[in-house]
């Protein structure tokens, strides 16, 4: 399933040269030297994972379903970004446009991506999952369908766009903004982290405080009783998919910003797996867990990469940590579900 053509999430961190005769070298010096740059870059990736993880966690909360097609909901958003920016004449090198023109263009790409992803999520729910629900299909049928939908969308894109990645798009040239302990934080990292944090806080508050959020929590805790309260369960489920899709669409913009050549038919796979891992790490079904898990997966992957001296280790380290955490806390760090989590 993992093709060699997947754009890897190789982070631009200076690496120490590992010794030739040992299989694994722990380069503690390198980690010490690159600690802050790894941290900021890890948080940037972590913010993207967290936004995608929210989609997994919300849908799991209301349906107890791992929506494997969520990685494709994300990649459709990436295509939304790609087509919008291509149409606006963005290319491999950063555009020569005034600041506000760039902001406007990116916002437009964001809107298109959000709509594309949310629409995909909603269509997947209506076409694939709702008929199963109506027939009271067993859990396994949902799982197989989810995997099937994931492949179906991937190959639909493959058939349409072919196997190779789309041309790289650079949105803007990252410029240094400030300096933390001798490490430069650039505009790209800052934009991604700030925007993602705003979206995460908004999602968290929406689930906690809004009426629809209360409906989502009620359905997650006890769907039948929620119905007895006058909650339209089907509408809540659809809304939940739409919110997950919306966040995936936003994540898509940041992802393409970070990895300009990442738009490819199967480009959502690895990211989807890591976001799912993030959701599990934090406690699946738990909104704050998804946020924490995402940031941790981003950070741990980066630290591991620097410590072990190779980007090949990024994912391995993240998953080893995931397994270790699950041994100690089987329900994830924050545990409990969307339903049972306090307020």
């Amino acid at each position, binding site marked *: 399933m993992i093709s060699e053509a997947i754009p890897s999430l190789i982070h631009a961190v200076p690496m120490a040269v590992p010794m030739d005769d040992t299989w694994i070298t722990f380069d503690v010096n390198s980690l010490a030297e690159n600690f802050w740059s790894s941290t900021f870059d890890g948080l940037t990736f972590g913010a993207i994972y967290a936004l995608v993880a929210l989609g997994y966690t919300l849908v799991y909360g209301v349906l107890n379903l791992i929506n494997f097609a969520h990685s494709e909901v994300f990649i459709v958003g990436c295509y939304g970004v790609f087509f919008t920016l291509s149409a606006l004449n963005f290319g491999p090198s950063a555009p020569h446009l005034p600041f506000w023109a760039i902001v406007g263009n990116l916002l437009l790409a964001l809107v298109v991506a959000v709509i594309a992803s949310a629409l995909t999520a909603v269509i997947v729910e209506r076409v694939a999952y709702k008929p199963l629900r109506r027939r009271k299909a067993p859990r396994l049928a949902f799982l197989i369908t989810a995997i099937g939908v994931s492949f179906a969308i991937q190959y639909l894109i493959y058939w349409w766009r072919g196997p190779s990645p789309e041309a790289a798009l650079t949105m803007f040239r990252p410029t240094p903004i400030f300096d933390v302990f001798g490490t430069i934080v650039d505009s790209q990292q800052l934009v991604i982290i700030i925007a993602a944090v705003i979206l995460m806080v908004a999602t968290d508050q929406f689930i906690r405080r809004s009426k629809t959020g209360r409906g989502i*929590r009620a359905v997650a805790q006890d769907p039948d009783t929620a119905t007895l*309260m006058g909650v339209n369960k089907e509408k809540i489920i659809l809304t939940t998919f739409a919110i997950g899709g919306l966040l995936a669409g936003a994540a898509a913009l940041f992802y393409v910003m970070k990895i300009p050549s990442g738009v490819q038919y199967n480009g959502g796979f690895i990211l989807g797996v890591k976001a799912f891992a993030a959701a599990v790490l934090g406690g699946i079904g738990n909104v704050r867990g998804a946020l924490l898990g995402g940031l941790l997966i981003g950070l741990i992957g980066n630290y591991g990469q620097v410590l072990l001296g190779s980007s090949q280790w990024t994912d391995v380290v993240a998953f080893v940590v995931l397994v270790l955490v699950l041994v100690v806390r089987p329900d994830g760090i924050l545990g409990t579900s969307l339903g049972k989590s306090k307020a």
Partner: protein
Amino acid sequence: MSLLELKNVSVHYGRIQAIHNMSFTVEEGEIVSLIGANGAGKTTTMRTVSGLLNPSYGSISFMGQDITSMKAHIRVVKGISQAPEGRGIFPGMTVMENLNMGSYGRNDSSGIAKDLERVFDLFPRLKERSKQFGGTMSGGEQQMLAIGRALMSNPKLLLLDEPSMGLAPQFIRQIFKIITEINDQGTTVLLVEQNANQALARSHRAFVLETGSITHRGTGKELMANPAIKEAYLGVA
């Protein structure tokens, strides 16, 4: 016109038939009880009235309107509210949030405020504990919360499925007193109970359910005097 009318209703779980050709009415202003042994089909009947289950045959009407195929969440807005068996408290929500769930389908904030006041008058404990999580309330408190929450939709018909389940005798008397009080305030009540003594004493009319069929019907007093029922349900030898 009856407030609620079931005509020849049958309900199936897959191939198993739980309710056989059941007909009964509930008139406005009444307390009507459904009593019967475990597995008789009481909860199935309640869930069919609230719309969580659909009858395989027969029809249900409410205030003269056929609601047989009406979605459950719309029936709530129409005036049917259920405190489910096992209470169905949302454990991760506070008492206040649970009560707010009860008025989910409403938009009239002044009406909601009035009903909240009514619920706090009936159950002062809920007001004291409004910030406590539902899951940490005692069984009796949860039952109060379940009833209070069901009242928050300002129902015309209140469905109570075993409100006395698992409660101490003193608490049971209190719950029944409150049910009568709710009824005196103008809410019609359809009550499912294992505690037949109390239920019959407080009900205008009652039905006895055996394996999915109604076997006896009458006023509370009549059924209490019936020797067969005395022996089977009232614990009188």
